[in-house]
């Protein structure tokens, strides 16, 4: 047996750094079969416990290996409503694949579970006529889902499969939440999201787009018209460093920059109406996945030089390894142990440089990570004409401020039971980033899935945590 993952073809760094086409090209059938052979079908299947939605991983791989692709897909889809999305954006290296027995063997890499998931989902999209029976509405209870990101889509799909009437409310004109506004086309093509969403529509879920709950539809109305409510509004409020010059032209939040590029297709301006500034020298602050996405998008828009500026080092960087390597290959330059302290503007209010200070790492802080401390007198000025701050998000307040009785935690997120998603308001559940703070797509899906189960228990009268 081969001890390395079957490689997946990618667009070459030279060509992809100037286009928005998908970077990773996926497996061929032969490659997928070859990789599937590497799975030991071990009896303990630790991979499953590493998956927030507990997909029967050995099961779908076995069917694939046996050439039964449709059955393989059915297994996947019965656990995961968005397999083509997860196969692309899940951090498999810290989830399923990190526990794979094959990966524990000397000099061996784990089975490429994510790539196989992607392959099966893409195969199904091309080869299967999805014959979905609309199940929603066979039960009389109605559930409202607020937000159509990964948590909301998952909860809605599962509830529809159980027969509930489900209405999803989405503030934007397209469903998908962070999948459509946050993750760039080159990492997750929007047609993939549309495909998964259309499956959920076929289950009978109603989508109410351009609808802001708390504004367009009042909370009181929602609570009186629905038997249960699931809130999955995400962590969508951008944080800013708050250093001098933050409001200069050319200083973006990653949210704004990525929304303009991904959702509004500003990279196709002027064919599309939404403009974007195209910097020559761009600095992205932060080193998470969002920072990688922003940096690589800026490069594709035509930037000559893109820096990622991070106050810690490569070791503490929160981004996925794969994304980091893709960024490196494309020529993104990393400035480690560097903290911007001031943006400098020209007479018209455009950013033209930023002053930074070098950092050194001291003993660990409360987060367990080494604490970065500025080195006195190490200040320097970096010439940039565009800055994107990707330093994290806070809870979106629009709904929360309009929701009487909904308890929030000290960080401003919804207080919800970790296991069930139940909040302080009867019949109201929450999950995903609006509860945990910014996390991953699959964790949000896991929360949506769990909440759907407990909403079901609550609606059938089996369980009621609000009964005191």
């Amino acid at each position, binding site marked *: 047996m081969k001890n390395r993952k079957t490689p997946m073809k990618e667009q070459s760094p030279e060509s992809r750094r100037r286009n928005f086409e998908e970077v990773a090209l996926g497996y061929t059938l032969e490659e997928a079969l070859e990789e599937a052979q590497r799975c030991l079908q071990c009896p303990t299947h630790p991979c499953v416990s590493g998956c927030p939605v507990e997909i029967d991983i050995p099961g779908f791989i076995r069917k694939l290996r046996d050439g039964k692709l449709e059955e393989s897909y059915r297994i996947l889809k019965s656990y995961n409503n968005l397999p083509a999305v997860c196969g692309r954006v899940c951090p498999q290296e810290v989830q399923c694949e990190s526990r794979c027995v094959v990966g524990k063997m000397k000099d061996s890499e784990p089975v490429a579970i994510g790539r196989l998931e992607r392959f099966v989902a893409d195969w199904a999209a091309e080869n299967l006529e999805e014959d979905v029976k609309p199940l929603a509405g066979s039960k009389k209870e109605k559930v409202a889902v607020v937000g159509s990101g990964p948590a909301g889509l998952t909860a809605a799909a599962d509830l529809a499969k159980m027969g509930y009437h489900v209405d999803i409310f989405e503030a934007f004109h397209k469903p998908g939440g962070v999948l459509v506004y946050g993750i760039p086309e080159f990492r997750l093509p929007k047609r993939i999201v549309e495909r998964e969403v259309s499956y959920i529509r076929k289950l009978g879920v109603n989508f109410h787009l351009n609808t802001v709950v708390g504004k367009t539809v009042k909370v009181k109305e929602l609570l009186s018209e629905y038997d249960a409510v699931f809130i999955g509004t995400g962590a969508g409020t951008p944080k800013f460093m708050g250093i001098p010059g933050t409001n200069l032209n050319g200083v973006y939040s990653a*949210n704004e920059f990525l929304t303009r590029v991904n959702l509004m297709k500003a990279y196709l301006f002027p064919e599309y109406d939404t403009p974007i*500034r195209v910097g020559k020298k761009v600095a992205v602050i932060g080193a998470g996945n969002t920072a990688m996405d922003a940096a690589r998008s800026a490069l594709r828009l035509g930037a000559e030089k893109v820096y990622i500026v991070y106050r810690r080092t490569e070791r503490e960087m929160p981004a996925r390894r794969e994304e980091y390597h893709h960024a490196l290959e494309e020529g993104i330059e990393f400035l480690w142990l560097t903290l911007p302290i001031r943006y400098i503007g020209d007479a018209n209010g455009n950013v033209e440089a930023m002053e930074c200070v070098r950092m050194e790492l001291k003993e660990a802080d409360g987060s367990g990570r080494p604490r970065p401390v500025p080195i006195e007198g190490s200040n320097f000025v970096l010439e940039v004409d565009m800055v994107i701050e990707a330093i994290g998000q806070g809870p979106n307040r629009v709904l929360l401020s309009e929701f009487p009785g909904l308890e929030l935690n000290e960080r401003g997120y919804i207080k919800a039971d970790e296991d069930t998603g139940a909040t302080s308001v009867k019949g109201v559940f929450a999950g995903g980033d609006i509860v945990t703070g910014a996390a991953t797509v699959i964790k949000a899906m896991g929360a949506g899935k769990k909440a759907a189960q407990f909403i079901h228990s609550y609606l059938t009268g089996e369980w009621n945590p609000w009964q005191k």
Partner: protein
Amino acid sequence: MNEIVKKVKIAEDVFDFWIHSPSVSKEARPGQFVVIRLHEKGERIPLTVADTKPEEGLFRMVVKVVGKTTHELSLKKEGDTILDVVGPLGNPSEIENYGNVLLVGGGVGIATLYPIAKALKEAGNNITTVLGARTKDYLIMVDEFKEISDVLLVTDDGSAGMKGVVTDAMDKLFRERKFDICWAVGPTIMMKFCTLKAREFGVPIWVSLNPIMVDGTGMCGACRVTVSGQIKFACVDGPEFRGEEVDWDELLKRLAQYREQEKISYERFLKTAGESE
């Protein structure tokens, strides 16, 4: 949904629309706005809700042609629909019985002021309104304001009312009478000078900001303004702020952010529309 039920040209480059949207017409309060998108390739732009008829499911917006999207909107006919309308967004105006209120409207900002004026009137205030425009051809909604307030007109060239700018009228009124509070809505530069004038006479002032916006729900941060030294998002913290607290010069610079692209987009549009010189 979002059908244009009525469209009237009410001044040079200014169009008055009634749009069918039961939810907006039912929930909108004075001071709030909507974000619209005309078609698949369109941008999202914020527009104020100028009036509502909840019983008919209609809301009103008054739009001045300033660029590609507003021009495209002005070409729509009755019976056409707008692809996306989101709202109402932002916080409603703080309506109370203040006593004597001075309202100052400039250009298409006059339409934003109208529902605020009606609500203030209903709350028992004694209202005086200054309406300003470049010339009389650009003045809008004068009769509607006359029904609820004393109206003073101002034009740059004196073609209607007094010759001058709205702050000249404010100066005159502040010298004659005592006002408890005022509102100014119009071009940003006008609101800046109205704020300076109100401060000169120690009268508190509300302004309605219209910065560049994308989502309108607090998730992008494009509309950030510095208010009392803090970063605020006009879409969820505003759109109304106390004028004395706004960093006007920064806001004016931020508004110019996409001027070049806006020009490219508009010229390209005019060329395809066959209207370019």
